[in-house]
């Protein structure tokens, strides 16, 4: 499903954010990416999302080399994916509803479906009472859950989550991980970046460990 071949990424010389990452994630897999801060976790997700172009290497997703797809067709790469950004990337002048439904709006979803699906996604992250609030009125953890709702609202085939529980209390973090597990069981490939070893141990799954841009894979559970 997702294949990376000798992917290198350098933002600035001489430091390599990713160095020679070769990796294959099967369809329907549930895996974690761990590693210290600055080890390249976010960079890895962004290359898969085609937000960051690798300096070297190839990335094949669903049989397509996404680096060959022209900029004007990026949406074909991104539509089957949902991504939770580490920095949320919410629109602060728009309500929670609009922040989540934007992912449906760009697909031309009819308004009725849009409302229903948005509400369901928000209920999954337990934020439906705040559907008409603005993100600035929400706590960090709540904003994070808006970002999660936006990532899952259109039933993506691939879900990428960058430290999605970084601002959540342990109970809520557990709940969110359970949600990801649930989504994964329906066939979605899930890749989560996290520091939370406790949760990894509890949920199990494949763990990809990054260290200074190098990948050290190990499997748990």
């Amino acid at each position, binding site marked *: 499903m997702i294949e990376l071949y000798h992917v290198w990424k350098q933002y600035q010389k001489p430091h390599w954010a990713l160095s020679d990452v070769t990796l294959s994630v099967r369809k329907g897999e549930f895996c974690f990416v761990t590693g210290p801060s600055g080890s390249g976790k976010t960079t890895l997700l962004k290359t898969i999302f085609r937000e960051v172009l690798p300096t070297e290497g190839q990335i094949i997703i669903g049989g397509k080399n996404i680096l060959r797809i022209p900029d004007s067709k990026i*949406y074909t790469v991104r539509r089957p994916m949902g991504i939770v950004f580490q920095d949320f*990337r919410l*629109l602060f002048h728009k309500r929670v509803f609009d922040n989540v439904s*934007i*992912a449906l709006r760009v*697909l031309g979803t009819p308004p009725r479906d849009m409302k229903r699906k948005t509400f369901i996604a928000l209920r999954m992250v337990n934020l439906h009472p705040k559907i008409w609030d603005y993100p600035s009125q929400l706590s960090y953890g709540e904003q994070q859950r808006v970002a999660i709702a936006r990532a899952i609202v259109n039933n993506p085939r691939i879900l990428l989550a960058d430290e999605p529980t970084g601002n959540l209390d342990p109970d809520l973090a557990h709940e969110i991980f359970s949600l990801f597990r649930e989504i994964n069981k329906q066939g979605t490939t899930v890749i989560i970046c996290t520091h939370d070893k406790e949760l990894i141990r509890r949920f199990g799954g494949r763990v990809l460990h990054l260290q200074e841009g190098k990948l050290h894979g190990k499997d748990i559970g």
Partner: protein
Amino acid sequence: MSNNLRFRARELSKDLTVMFYLQKTVPAGERDLILDQIRRSPLVGTVHTISPEEASAKFAEDFPDLKAILLNLNANPFPASIEVSLKDPGLPTASVLQFIAEVKKNSAVEDVQFNREWADKIRSLGRLAEAVGLFLGGILVLASFFIISNVIKLNVLARKNEIEILRLVGATNTFIRIPFLFEGVLMGVAGSAISLLVVLILIKLFPLYLGSSLGALQEIVGFRYLTLAQALGLVLGGGSVGLLGGLTSLARFLRI
């Protein structure tokens, strides 16, 4: 404006008539000779002779106030004249001018008057107005083009965040561009519609403002509003200018 004048010029030259004023003391024989010469010309339509008496009567009729002055004069001041209306209603051509010059060679013909000069003047005035109109129109089109593309540039910059997120959630470029282009077209159409309205109001008020001081000029400068096709063209043109402004602005500031 240029519209108006062009129309007037055509109107005036339509009834292009030439007046030949004869000397006071012209024997009837010589007058008939001249008449003959005129009638022979293929350019001439109808010929009408006006005796001094007729001229005087017409004057009295046209200007009843001045009738007294006329009566006080012992002699009739009006010369006999020949009114010739030309066949071709178009503007005077070289052959017409030649014809007039030839008739004028007769020593009995004292003066010639025809409204060619008027037609010419108005026509050149019309051309001037047209040129000025084109120039101003060009400036206006350019100005609105730059204003619209700038407004859209500002909008693009103001909505940078949103554009980025739209791209991240899989919007096509067209989906992102359309609202901006729509905005441009809307601005163009609204702008031209408003200017159309202003022109309409001005045209309605201008004669009122000038009032009777225009006098006979009113006839000539009489205002005709733009035709429906022209108004539609203006609005469509405004829309296209807006669209173009939007497109260029997006090409420069929305690199997606």
